[in-house]
């Protein structure tokens, strides 16, 4: 019966987020954006959408990175507004959404310090949704154990990190492994949290997270070909909350080339479609884009359900996709490279 009292606690925010969703750019907007000649044109058109005058105070000339920053800022302001007004368990749910950004930020900072970049430059590249106060001191750590003890022990990510402490030192390979281990722990935790919430939230979110988990498993496998990652280690990185678990994952762990991955996907109707449409030839969509498309579809579906938290997750994901789209178009416009300008992923 949680639906009965859902609106008492979360009705306002759900309404708000559904309202925000209506501001997501439509296909017609993209058609207009694609015709832009300069970034100024892009700005002019974005002004007529829900973005409003978010670029009004930027002096010319405009750059893509300014647009990116401003769009991100807008999303963050909206998200913070939601977060500041919410009650449990929605608060925890929204926090879970930020954890993935925190993971990305940590990895970004570690990689950056590994390459001797100044910390200030790195901080400005971090996603503001995933910032936490110990973040800036991350570069003192030189081993995973140190990272855990000095920096992460106070953050919500601490429990996820326990599995990584055993790694010896921080090099490129290990950073990737840490990232994926963190992600795996995070996804599984989030999955269980949503499952415990029950009701429509569990229904929607488990599907979304299962897809996310499977996508990671596929990508990890494909990216691991030609690296020194062993099959056993690879299997440890697969998040175990997707549709692939357990059979698909064990088969994936045995895969040695792209075709074998493809064969695994054959067993799952929804993934088969994705692999069938994907290709590397010009004109074909990449597998990554296919995954994004599928994600967008899932996210749109979640708005069909009432009384659940999935809409918040979906909104953030859709908005991110929208940012990627606009940035893509913006880059194409800025670099006068219009051949591939159409390969954005329409949302509505």
């Amino acid at each position, binding site marked *: 019966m949680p639906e009965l009292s859902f609106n008492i606690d979360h009705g306002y925010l759900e309404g708000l987020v559904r309202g925000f969703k209506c501001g997501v750019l439509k296909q017609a907007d993209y058609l207009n954006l694609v015709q832009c000649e300069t970034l100024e044109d892009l700005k002019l058109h974005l002004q007529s959408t829900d973005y409003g005058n978010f670029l009004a105070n930027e002096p010319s000339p405009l750059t893509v990175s300014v647009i990116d920053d401003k769009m991100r800022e807008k999303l963050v302001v909206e998200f913070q507004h939601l977060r500041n007004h919410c009650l449990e368990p929605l608060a925890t749910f929204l926090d879970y959404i930020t954890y993935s950004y925190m993971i990305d930020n940590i990895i970004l900072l570690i990689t950056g310090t590994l390459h001797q970049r100044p910390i200030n430059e790195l901080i400005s590249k971090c996603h503001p949704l995933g910032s936490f106060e110990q973040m800036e*001191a991350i570069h003192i750590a030189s081993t995973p154990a140190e990272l855990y*003890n000095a920096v992460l022990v106070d953050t919500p990510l601490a429990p996820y990190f326990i599995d990584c402490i055993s790694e010896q030192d921080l090099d490129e390979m290990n950073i990737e492994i840490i990232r994926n281990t963190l992600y795996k722990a995070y996804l599984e935790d989030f999955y269980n949290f949503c499952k415990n919430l029950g009701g429509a939230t569990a229904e929607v979110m488990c599907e979304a997270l299962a897809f996310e988990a499977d996508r990671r498993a596929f990508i990890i496998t494909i990216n691991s070909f030609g690296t020194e990652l062993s099959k056993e280690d690879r299997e440890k990185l697969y998040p175990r909350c997707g549709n692939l678990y357990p059979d698909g994952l064990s088969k994936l762990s045995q895969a040695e080339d792209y075709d074998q991955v493809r064969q695994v996907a054959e067993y799952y109707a929804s993934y088969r479609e994705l692999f069938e449409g994907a290709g590397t030839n010009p004109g074909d969509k990449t597998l990554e884009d296919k995954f994004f498309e599928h994600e967008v579809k899932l996210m749109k579906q979640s708005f069909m359900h009432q009384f659940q938290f999935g809409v918040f997750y979906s909104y953030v994901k859709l908005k991110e996709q929208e940012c990627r789209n606009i940035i893509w178009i913006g880059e194409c416009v800025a670099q006068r490279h219009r051949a591939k300008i159409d390969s954005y992923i329409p949302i509505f």
Partner: protein
Amino acid sequence: MGSLFRSEEMTLCQLFLQTEASYACVSELGELGIFQFKDLNQNVNAFQKKFVNEVRRCEEMERKLRYIEKEIKKDELKIPDFGENPKAPAPKEMVDLEAQFEKNESELREVNTNAEALKRNFLELTELREVLKKTQTFFSVVNLPNIVGEAQHALVIEESGPAQAVQLGFIAGVIPREKVPPFERMLWFACRGNVFLRYEEIQQPLEDPHTGEAKHKAVFMIFFQGEQLKARVKKICEGFRAALYPCPESTQERQEMLRGVTTRLEDLKMVLNQTEDHRRRVLVGAQKEIRNWIIKVEKIKAIYHTLNMFSFDISHNSLIAEGWCPVQSLEEVRRVLKEGEKLSGSTIPSILHPLKTKEVPPTFFKTSRFTQGFQNIVDAYGVATYQEVNPMPYTIITFPFLFSVMFGDAGHGTLMFLFGLWMVIKEKSLLSQKSNNEIWNTFFGGRYIIMLMGLFSIYTGMIYNDAFSKSFNIFGSAWHSTYTDGDLQGDGETATLVLDPGPFYRNGTPYPFGIDPIWQSAKNKITFLNSFKMKMAVILGISQMVFGVCLSIFNHLHFKMIVCLFCEFLPELIFLLALFGYLIFMVYYKWLVFDVTESGCAPALLIQYINMFMFKYEDASEKTDCDVQATFYENQQTIQTIFVIMAVLSVPVLLLVKPFYLRSLHNAKTHPPKVEKDTSKSVNGKSKPVGEDVKVSYGHALINHGEDEEEFEFSEIFIEQAIHTIEFCLGCISHTASYLRLWALSLAHAQLSEVLWTMVLHIGLSMDMQYLGGLIIFVVWMFWANLTIAVLLVMEGLSAFLHTLRLHWVEFQSKFYSGNGYLFQPFGFKHILDIDSLQEIK
């Protein structure tokens, strides 16, 4: 002043403007504010329009102005409003404006960056001074070796024993106060407890040079041992963005440094003051002009936005605009266009010529301050269809009147009237305050309505003889009671007595105006008033509905739908009058014919009326002396039967005639030979009165007027007519009943105010405590007055207002008003003056 009764006659115009003159012309039109442009480039992307570059330049100017304005506001300078309204500058001047803004902005930015750099310098020096001062106290509490020893003790003792003398290093810096706890924790975790941290807050807040915010900070000192730890501590400091400052170890050096820093700070203060003065000068210069600048830029932008709606004719190097304009103002528009040409020095005149169109023109009423409120009431239901009868002029009277029927109390009416009067008299000064309070603005917008409602309430209050639930006895009651003193002084129960008109009423002149005050003390007051008010409500309601039906005549005549006069208006009127007009007749008949001696045996109205539909009449032979079933008058049966039959017959007329007539008309139109049609088309070249095309869209009548594009769908018309018929016939019954709310609310209001009197003020008045009573009545009066205002005036007033609104929208306007139009929104600069600023944009 345009006609109150219909919206202005509009015409679609085409404007041919020379490219060089177009800007000036549009600017002049904007000042005039009487022309509504149509967007001819709806399908063109925003960034592909012709004047997009100019719009962009305007936006750039806006951005600069916003920056300047923000800086002005930051220094808490006010932007003066002299009420001036500069014209839009010519396009050539735009460059000057741009240059001016550019200069202003860059100057400001330069000053700001300088000031920021200086401030940063100042901040650093202040922080350094604080560090030096605080470390001084750290060290002076116990002299250096001691504190180092203490730290040493804390850090080293467990590991290597006290004997080993280790040189401890330290660094000092400043960190925001709120970051201290995580900083301390992080140091602990990262250095495994091998560092020693002391910190102390800086008392006065320090100003952040970038944002100008005051921030609380703390000075800290960290003692550590060895280079590795030092590197690590420094990294953590960097991570937490703590500012580190060099701090010499010896006391003397520190004191010397402190002296140096203090003198440098003094110097810097001087320089800072000078920069501040310079900044002030720049801002004060901009402050006087900024309002004009904003208005100018907004006007330019509005003009270019409008120009973007025009289509471009390359062959004639001219812009073509289309738009709506009241026919009356055509000359004015032409004059203004000429002025624009003169200004721009163009030799070729602009051409304005009216177009013939099938599009429905927008609805435009010229209103005054007084009529605006009432027009708003009508528009809130639906904007009048072009040129249909406007209910507004009638609403001016009927609205306050029906309100006052429900709100009939002279006392409350006076209060309301005075409130309205105050708003009307103070109109100018209140208007200039530009309040943002929504509730206040609603009341203020309806100030004339409130005033009239108050006035009418005083009138009905006098009729009801009711002021704060008390009556006036001005002329002396026309009743004469036969109660003896003994009756009156009996027990409390007989304090109010039943008034029986038989023995008490002094046959002769009734009370000259309104209700006799004696009813106030009668026990049967409610019975009497109910009967009176109920009948009055029905009479008023039916009159208003008949009036509404009659108004539809003007619509039918204006739209040249003579057929509707006979097949719509007439049956409607017959239906209404035969059934409900007759009811009014009977009410009056009963009032006039039966006097007090026979009233006990008078036939009941309700039963009579029901019997009329049942065709049930008493047999004359069974007639008794006192029979409520008896008829009022002779031949009643015949007359009533005729009326019912007339009403019933008018229904099929209303339902069937119009659709079939339209169909025959349509069939006749489609059949005639082609030749005739062609000639009629060629005649159409000259412009005809616009009204003729418009009737196409009037109401639900889809009549075709010689044009073949409109589909004639018989079933649709038939269904619409059926709906209309059912709505009207059922509506007559339910609407009549609906008018009974006049009685119900009036009763409720009177009772509430009486209750308030007897339960509150009366208690205070009847207290027998000599002088103390004065105090009590003071308190009680406050309660009574507050409740009167809050409940009786505001709440009851609002509810009566709502019911009046409904009576007008549903019961009255449904008889003739279709409200399918759209508002005329001319292009004008007026609203630009109302932009109190652009500060909404971040």
